[in-house]
């Protein structure tokens, strides 16, 4: 088993998909940090504009530079963001009665906002789905799985080794995201005050959120072993995109509130609301059930079908 893992890890680190997906994750992390920055800046500008309108009683003149740049992509995005924000603020004000002008918006600091973008991160789930599919189905497409299976290696061990390797990838890509995010935030934000208590809690939340994350990987692995072709990538992506919706529909049809049991939701809930013991326990238990069940199905199918 150790030999198999060593072999699979060797392949993983040399896989083109490994490098491409890591770079993709890093670029998106940088982008997301800048986007948070951009959205706060836009919100503050919008708040200032509204404040001027409220004080003068008339619509504030448009910033000439902003008007000149209206056609540009960023300005278009800013305006789009502002109109979306206006709609959401109006709705929120109607609900809470709170005046937008009284709200306080500040740029996040590194230590406060460090892990926030990672909670319930569907991007990372998608990237892991792609890696798992390519890594496993590639063995079938190129026929290399035959070389391993023909040397008396048990199918169960082969399966578990691949599962653990994909899980290792998921941890690596998560760690890489955290590192890139931290470095980017250190460049664009103030460090802020380091709150050890909050940091510990964030890490606990993140660790608990790993369970549903690993449950996803277990399901991707089972799907890849069942599909055994390039189609596995498509099936897994569709699963990530629409699986939650189908799950909700199924639980509604059965009149059961099982939302927490969907790994995507559990990932978010377990990580964010881990202090709610029931919620955290339910998320973790549901994840373990997923891991065990999907592995059993995957191993059974892989063991019974000819290669």
């Amino acid at each position, binding site marked *: 088993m150790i030999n198999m893992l060593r072999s699979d890890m*060797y*392949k993983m680190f040399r896989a083109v998909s490994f490098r491409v997906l890591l770079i993709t994750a890093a670029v998106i992390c940088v982008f997301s940090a800048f986007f948070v920055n951009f959205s706060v800046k836009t919100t503050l500008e919008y708040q200032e504009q509204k404040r001027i309108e409220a004080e003068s009683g008339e619509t504030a003149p448009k910033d000439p530079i902003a008007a000149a740049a209206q056609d540009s992509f960023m300005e278009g995005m800013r305006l789009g963001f502002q109109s979306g924000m206006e709609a959401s603020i109006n709705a929120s004000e109607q609900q809470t009665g709170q005046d937008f002008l009284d709200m306080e918006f500040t740029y996040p600091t590194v230590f406060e906002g460090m892990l926030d973008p990672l909670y319930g991160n569907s991007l990372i789930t998608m990237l892991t789905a792609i890696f798992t599919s390519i890594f496993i189905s590639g063995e079938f497409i190129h026929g290399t799985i035959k070389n391993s299976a023909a040397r008396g290696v048990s199918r169960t061990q082969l399966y578990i080794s691949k599962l653990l390797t994909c899980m290792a990838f998921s941890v690596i890509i998560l760690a890489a995201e955290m590192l890139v995010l931290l470095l980017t935030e250190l460049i664009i934000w103030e460090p802020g005050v380091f709150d050890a208590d909050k940091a510990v809690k964030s890490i606990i939340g993140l660790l608990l959120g790993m369970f549903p994350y690993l449950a996803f990987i277990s399901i991707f692995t089972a799907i890849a072993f069942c599909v055994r072709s390039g189609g596995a990538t498509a099936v897994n992506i569709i699963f990530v995109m629409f699986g939650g919706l189908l799950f909700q529909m199924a639980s509604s049809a059965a009149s059961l509130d099982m939302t927490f049991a969907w790994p995507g939701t559990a990932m978010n809930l377990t990580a964010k609301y881990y202090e709610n013991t029931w919620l955290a326990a339910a998320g973790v238990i549901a994840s373990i059930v997923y891991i065990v069940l999907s592995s059993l199905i995957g191993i059974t199918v892989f063991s019974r079908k000819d*290669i």
Partner: protein
Amino acid sequence: MDYVLRTFGLSKAYKKKNVLENVNINVRKGDIYGFIGRNGAGKTTLIKLVSGIAAPTGGSIELFGSNDLNMQRKRIGTIIEYPSVYPNLSARQNLEVYRRLYGIPDTNAIDNILDAVGLGDVGKKPAKAFSLGMKQRLGIAAALLGNPDFLLLDEPTNGLDPEGITEIRDLLIRLNTENNITMLISSHILGELSKIATCYGIIKDGQLMEEITAEELSVRCKRCLKITVDDTAKTASILENQLHTQNYDILPENVVRIFDFLDDAGRINSELVKNGVNVKSLTSAGADLEEYFIEKMGGFKK
């Protein structure tokens, strides 16, 4: 006698279609077993069953005299259908994957095998840029890692140029004679196989038609006169005492094969008749290897 592989009534069916039926194969230690059959005859299926990547629907397999197949399969190297390589890895990296998988501590093993198969100087070129011949060599190299005692090679010379075929053939003979590696080589290139095989199994439509050693085969393919007579004992006596030859054998149904006097059949006929033997038929027989196999495999397809 030590057998490396024996199968007993081995069968395989896909969707109720029998692709292998009641096959009893016997590969002795040290053999280069040429496994011959048309495309779709069941050669690859048998190799898949023996190597464990497909499950039989009937019968059993014995490897190295044992039924603990998973343990014994660790002593086997295989190429099945086509050489399976990781396209983005170099030859060395491909073998490194298997070195780790098989738990081989010696890192020099890779260099030695790459040199042996003629891929010692391909450097970091990824396997996807290899020619089919180079991929075949890499596949053989992967099969050789871990010093297997038994090689299962499915069409190992496919895609090789004549020079490559000769090199691979020499390599396989060397591995057999120097390292005492037993081999089962499936092929439909009879000429190539006949240069290295020490015994043959002929498969047709999933059924093993015949197992025969190279020596037996050369005798069967030898040109001879086939005579059907009423008295084989008397015929033998005439052949030895009057025609002074012992180069003959007696087959069932009163058939005598004579390997001398091939261009003088009339003399034999007259001697036998003169001595009161009733000659029912006298024909010239014998074929080359290819004709023999084609006949066994059911003749040419029309």
